[in-house]
């Protein structure tokens, strides 16, 4: 196995931070073991010769679609705000961003 593909506890903590998911020690441990196992298995891709091969992002060839700038109907504000945890007038209310 390629040693560079060993995932450390600190790396899992870093990933948790990047993804904005709080994790306790037990969750971090179990995540490390499972991810290690998965990554060792997906590492077989290095066997494939991909020199001079272009990457595929989508299986259909996409072109940018242009359209006329015509005003359409919007969703009613009340319907959109219905799912917001907290609102004030026509706004979504959030907790303080700065301490």
């Amino acid at each position, binding site marked *: 196995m390629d040693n560079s593909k060993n995932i450390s506890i600190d790396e899992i903590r870093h990933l948790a931070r*990047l993804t904005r*998911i709080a994790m306790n020690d037990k969750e971090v441990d179990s995540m490390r073991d499972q991810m290690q196992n998965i990554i060792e298995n997906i590492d077989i891709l290095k066997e494939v010769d991909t020199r001079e091969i272009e990457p595929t992002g989508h299986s259909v060839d996409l072109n940018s679609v242009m359209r006329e700038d015509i005003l359409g109907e919007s969703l009613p504000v009340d319907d959109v705000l219905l799912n917001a945890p907290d609102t004030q007038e026509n706004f979504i209310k959030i907790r303080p961003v700065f301490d």
Partner: protein
Amino acid sequence: MNDVELKNLTLSKARKMLDNKKFSAVELTESFIKRIHTIDNDVKSFVTVTEDYALEQARAADKIIETGKQNLITGIPVQLKDNICTSGILTTCSSKMLENFIPPYDAYVSKIIKNSHSVLLGKGNLDEFAMGSSTENSRFYPTKNPYDLTRVPGGSSGGPAAAVAASECLFSLGSDTGGSIRQPASLCGVVGLKPTYGRVSRYGLIAFASSLDQIGPLTKDVRDSATVLQSIAGYDPYDSTSLNVEVPNYLDKLETGVKGFKIGVPKEYFQTGIDPQVEHSVRQSLKILEELGAHVEEISLPLTKYALSVYYILAPSEASANLTRYDGIKYGYSTTNGISMWDGLEMTRQEGFGEEVKRRILLGTYALSSGYYDAFYLKAQKVRTLIRKEFEDAFSKYDVLAMPTSPSTAFKLGEKTDNPLQMYLNDIFTIPSNIAGIPAISVQAGMIEGLPVGLQFMAGALQEVKLFQAAYAYEQATDWHKFSPSI
């Protein structure tokens, strides 16, 4: 209508009977609602049942049928997988994160269902955010396989597959990112179609992996599958990956048979981890296709063994980006724990997402992070190019390919939940077509110890007509599609 009549009913039979006034849409709907009340406590295929709304739609359908302006699916009772947005109706993704989410708009396909006055009976259970192969990752409860309630229905469209198999609706729409329509169809003995990527609009389908996700039907037989695709295929400016290509008539050539058809059978689909009895059933099916006049030849697609790895890099990478939107601010679950906005965000995601979802978000973030991007994400995209090319070459010589849908029949509940990698292997035969964007269908091809087996066909991009032709010819030459569970 009694249970036996309901079990024998297909969409196309119901269409004729509705049009000939053998029964009304309201009567048909009442029969299905009664059946849901009787058996869904055991099967658990529904997350939400929309009884009153269904009856309202059925009454409207009856009026339309009276005027002769019905289309293929008017008055037909349907379920939608609960990751397809329905305006004003709970859409949960079987996640705590969206437990109380009421979409303010309809998905493209939901709008078609609504405008056709198809009768929406409710929403189907799934693995949370469509991540899983057994429906055990549902936040609410696992769905059971109607053939054996101690076994899984497959996933992630386990609710839709079980609902069709148990005759709780006439068809359901699922989503397929790596096999999520076909694998449960195989395990529940129904027909599951993943159309060509872009053939059916994804607008309003809650995104998992956007370059792989595709909506498709789960039905009782191949004719119904073609009928539903006819109703939902087409261009939608609201989905930038939707194909602006004419929709052919999928029913025209359905009965033309497979005489002279060239069918390739990739040997790699019989090599890794396949149950010998599943292999036997599939090989028997290939003989039947030969007897029907098809030329069946073994071929090799050597890159097949890399598809699973490509998938488990690309799908989590896309998911990690798509799922950043769940922040507890605009909609969805929001924790009351923590003090600042940042605490709230991190704890909302800790409490709102299940284990598999978190695993994929972290895995995807890892594959996209600097230092690993080239080795994982970019590498996977390049191998994707090669896999696509391998299929293109195969379809320059063969009309369709045939292979098993899943390496095994339905497994026991809890059997694979402790080992994510073992669970991922269920999709080994379905993932390649998502990577290549090509259409594929699963039809029932046998019974092993009381459990259904699936036969899969794949075709080149936009060649659904050929797919239906082969699947229909096989289905009609056998009796497997007439089986239904005893429940």
